[in-house]
C-alpha cells in the first residue's frame, strides 16, 4: 500500500523503541523502521526517506534532523517539525515526554496527530515503567545490604537475626537515617576492619 505512512524511530533504548513500535502497529501503522546506532545518520535517513521521524530528546542527533528542513540534493522531500503557531501545548507535552516528531512537508496534520499522541503516551508509559523498575532495583539492593549487615552483627555480637534487625532499626531512628544507610555503614566498617 503506497498510501501507508512510513515511520522512522530513532532511539538508542531498545525497550522503549519496542514499546513504541508495538503501539504503532496496534494502531495499524506497520511500516516502522528503527535506528539505534546513529552513526552516519544523515545519509541513512535520506536513504530510508521516511514520512515521519520520531526521535528521543536525549539524542544529540536531533540537530541532524534540523538540517533536513532545508532543500538539498540528498533530501528530496524536506522535513519539518510537527509544530505551527498554535502548537505550544503539543510541544510542551512532547518535551515533557522526552520525544520529538518531524514530518515530511505537505503531510496532512490530521494524519500525524494520532501518531504523535500515541508516541507521547508510550514514552510516558515507558518512563513510568523505568521509575518502577528503578524503585524495585533500589529496594532489592537495600534488601541485600541489610541482609549483609544483619549477618555481620549476628556474628560479631552473637545475636539472633531479629535482634540484629532491631539494632539496625533503632540506630536508624536515632540517627534519622534509613535502615539501608545504617546497614551500608555497618558493611563498610566491617570491610575496612577486616
Amino acid at each position: 500500500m503506497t498510501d501507508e505512512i512510513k515511520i522512522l524511530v530513532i532511539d538508542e533504548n531498545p525497550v522503549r523503541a519496542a514499546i513504541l513500535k508495538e503501539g504503532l502497529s496496534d494502531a495499524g501503522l506497520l511500516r516502522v523502521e528503527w535506528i539505534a546506532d546513529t552513526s552516519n545518520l544523515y545519509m541513512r535517513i535520506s536513504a530510508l526517506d521516511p514520512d515521519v521521524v520520531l526521535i528521543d530528546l536525549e539524542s544529540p542527533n536531533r540537530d541532524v534532523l534540523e538540517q533536513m528542513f532545508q532543500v538539498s540534493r540528498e533530501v528530496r522531500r524536506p522535513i519539518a517539525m510537527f509544530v505551527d503557531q498554535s502548537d505550544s501545548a503539543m510541544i510542551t507535552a512532547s518535551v515533557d515526554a522526552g520525544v520529538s516528531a518531524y514530518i515530511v512537508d505537505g503531510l496532512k496534520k490530521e494524519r500525524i496527530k494520532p501518531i504523535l499522541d500515541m508516541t507521547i503516551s508510550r514514552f510516558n508509559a515507558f518512563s513510568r515503567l523505568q521509575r518502577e523498575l528503578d524503585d524495585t532495583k533500589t529496594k532489592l539492593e537495600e534488601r541485600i545490604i541489610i541482609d549483609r549487615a544483619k549477618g555481620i552483627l549476628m556474628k560479631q555480637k552473637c545475636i539472633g537475626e531479629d535482634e540484629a534487625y532491631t539494632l539496625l532499626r533503632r540506630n536508624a531512628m536515632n540517627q534519622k537515617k534509613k535502615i539501608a544507610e545504617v546497614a551500608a555503614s555497618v558493611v563498610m566498617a566491617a570491610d575496612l576492619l577486616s
Partner: protein
Amino acid sequence: MTSPENLTVVRAGFIALVDCAVLVAARELGFAQAHGLDLHLTKEVSWANIRDRVNIGQFDVAHMLAGMPIAQSLGINHIKIPTIAPLALGVGGNAITVSHALYQALQDTGRDLSQPLTAARALGQVVAARQAQGQEPLSFGQVFPFSCHNYQLRYWMAAGGVDPERDVRLVVIPPPYMVNSLKAGQVDGFCVGEPWNIQAAAEGVGVILTHTSAFWPSGPEKVLGLQQRWAEAHPQTLKALLQALDEAAQWVDDPDHHAQLAHILAQPAYLDVVESLVLSALEGDLKFHRDGAEWAECEDALWLYAQMVRWGQTPPSAQAEQAVCRTFRPDLLVDVIAPRAAHEASPSPLPLDGITFDATDVTGYIAQLAIKNCSK
C-alpha cells in the same frame, strides 16, 4: 550576603562546549549568588532541545549559537518567538579541521595552507580535480543550521571558489561525535568549537587547517539567549544576571584562572573530557571579556542575517532586517557593565573574498557575491 532561601532561581540550559565557561563560572565561583541569584545549570544534548525548552519556559535563559535568537525572532523553520541576546558569552574558538588524507591532497596543490584564502583555493583545486575524475564529493560536518560554524565553513569555501551547496556535502554532526565521524571517514573535515578540534589533532585523526577567527569578523559566537517576554517580565533579575555574567567573564578571561577553570569545566557535570584539552582550548583564540567580547550589536546580528539570506535560509526583507536589529540588545548592558571603549573594538580581518560587508545595505552586499543560494 543573601541567605539561600532569598535567592531568585534562574534556570539556564547549556551545551558541553568550552564557551559555556561564563555560565559555569557564574555559578561555581559564586558571582551569581553574590547578585542574589541561584543559577541552575542544565546540560542539554542538542541545540534543538535548548530552543524548545526556552520556548516552552523550562529554561529562563540559555547558552545559544549567535544565529539562534535571530532565527527564532524571524520564525525560520519553526515557531516565531521574539528572542533576544543582551550579552555574548564568547568570541572565537572555532576551527576547520580536515582528515590527513585531505590535508595531503591540499598540500599537493603547492599552495600556502597557513593562510585561510590560499587554503580555501587549495580546496577549490582539490574539489575541481575530484569532480573531473568523477569522485564522490567531499563531506564536511558542522553543528547546526544557524551556527557560525555553518556560515564560517560556507564563507571560507565560497572564497576559494567552492559552492557549498553543489560542490561538497555539508552535514550536521553533534560536536561530541565529530572526531569519530572524521576517524570513520564519514566526513573529510569539519568546523566545530573547542575542545573537539584539539582532540582530533591530539588523537592524530585530523589536522587543524585554520582557526575561523583568522577570516571571520570578531562578532559573537555564543550568546545569552532568552525570550523577550521573560526579559520584560523580570528586568531586575536579568540585570543581576548580566552583572554576574560580566564579573564571571572577567574572571574567566584571566589566564591566571585557566587551570582552575579547566579543572571545573572538565568535570562530568560540564564537559566531561580530559582537563588538558580544556586548558589548551582556553589558551587559544577564545575571548570572553577582553576586546569588548561581551557586546552583541545590531551590526553583528545583520552580518549573521546576511549569511542566512545568502544561503537561502530566509528571504530578504526590510522588515526582517528591523526585527534582526532588535534581537541583539546592547542597550540592556549599558547601565550594567562598563561601556565599551572605542579601542576595544578589535579590528576585523579583511574580507577573504574582498567584499566588504555594509550593514546598511545587506541586499547590496549579497548582490556582489558570486556564490550564493538565494533562489528559494
